[in-house]
């Protein structure tokens, strides 16, 4: 399986925050969801990927090409959707098309107008008058009309209502009918990932905690629920973290099989959600460092 992107030991520091030794890859032909809490480093990673920030050390290759040496050629093959509107608000779609289309060699008006029609976007109205959902649909239309192989989206579904989110996911599924396409998108609406993501990359505190197949992840991890008398300090070490209350405990395990061996039928073991994994991992980190 080929990788579209490889990050190798990439570092970037700011005053109060740094990305430490970030290594991960994005598989060609699949959807990778990029999750992490606010401030965990999602946007910084995406900016590094887009070459909008300078890395301090490490290596980033895209389509097997060095990012710095082949910047222009790489950008031609990428479609980028940003979480905020980065278009001139006083222009209309028609006017923006005149500016954006010539920037790409492979710009295809057929694709562009197909999406403008499909999304029922008014061509002559100024963008300022658009709703958030319309702006996002417009941004996506602009991003994919040069038929890019690799689509990067920073929080494409945030702030959108469920109907819009479904429509966008439907569109992404359409794109993925072509096995040459790859999508990388960051989100904290993890339920969106249930419908589409093949891989999950989780960033926490500037470090990648894991990057693996979603199905595999959800079958390895589990939520264990039971009575607190079952716990002692050794057993507690088996968990990523534990939430104890007066009525029992709830914990995340990264090894469901082992938990089943330890507790048998004395506990209830459930399939975790991505939210559970994020919450307990975050909690575990906090108790380790303080």
């Amino acid at each position: 399986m080929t990788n579209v992107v490889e990050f190798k030991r990439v570092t970037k520091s700011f005053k109060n925050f740094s990305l430490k030794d970030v290594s991960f890859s994005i598989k060609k032909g699949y959807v990778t969801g990029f999750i992490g809490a606010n401030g965990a480093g999602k946007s910084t990673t995406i900016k590094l990927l887009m070459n909008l920030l300078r890395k301090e050390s490490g290596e980033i290759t895209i389509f097997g090409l060095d990012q710095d040496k082949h910047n222009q050629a790489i950008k031609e093959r990428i479609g980028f959707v940003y979480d905020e509107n980065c278009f001139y608000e006083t222009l209309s779609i028609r006017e923006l098309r005149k500016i954006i289309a010539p920037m790409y060699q492979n710009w295809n008006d057929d694709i562009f107008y197909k999406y403008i029609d499909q999304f029922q976007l008014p061509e002559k109205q100024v963008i300022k008058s658009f709703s958030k959902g319309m702006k996002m649909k417009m941004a996506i239309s602009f991003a994919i009309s040069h038929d890019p192989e690799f689509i990067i989206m920073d929080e494409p579904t945030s702030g959108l209502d469920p109907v819009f989110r479904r429509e966008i996911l439907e569109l992404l599924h359409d794109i993925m009918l072509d096995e040459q396409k790859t999508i990388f998108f960051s989100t904290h609406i993890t339920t969106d990932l249930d419908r589409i993501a093949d891989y999950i990359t989780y960033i926490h505190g500037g470090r990648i905690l894991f990057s693996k197949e979603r199905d595999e992840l959800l079958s390895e991890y589990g939520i264990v629920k039971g009575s607190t008398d079952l716990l002692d300090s050794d057993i507690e070490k088996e968990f990523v973290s534990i939430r104890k209350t007066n009525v029992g405990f709830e914990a995340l395990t990264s090894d469901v099989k082992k938990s089943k061996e330890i507790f048998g039928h004395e506990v209830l073991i459930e399939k975790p959600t991505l939210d559970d994994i994020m919450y307990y991992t975050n909690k575990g980190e906090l108790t380790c460092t303080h």
Partner: protein
Amino acid sequence: MKIIISNTSKEPIYEQIIKQIKELVLKGELQEGDSLPSIRQLAKDLQISVITTKRAYEELEKDGFIVSVVGKGSFIASQNKELLKERRLKIIEEKLIEIIEESKIIDLSKDELIEMVLILYGDDVI
């Protein structure tokens, strides 16, 4: 082809797909040579990830239910009728064992059980 996925079921989604396609084959609703939707089309239709449908197809191929031809897609494989029958016989056997065990619990005799089967089967008792 009809496939219904439950998101609340404990059974993983890829297993649900495998089970339902196998059932369609055993029932004869899918027959040798019938083409299946592509991995990516099925993922889109069911609104699930590509890797999930890919895994289901890979397992079905391993079990000999389907064949995949590069560039052409996936098709129902020619089924060994004897083997299929044998598998179904095994399922019946397992269910019968269950029935016999249930019968023993309430002290139902062998003859009584056989009589019950004959009546339910719809033939006259000889």
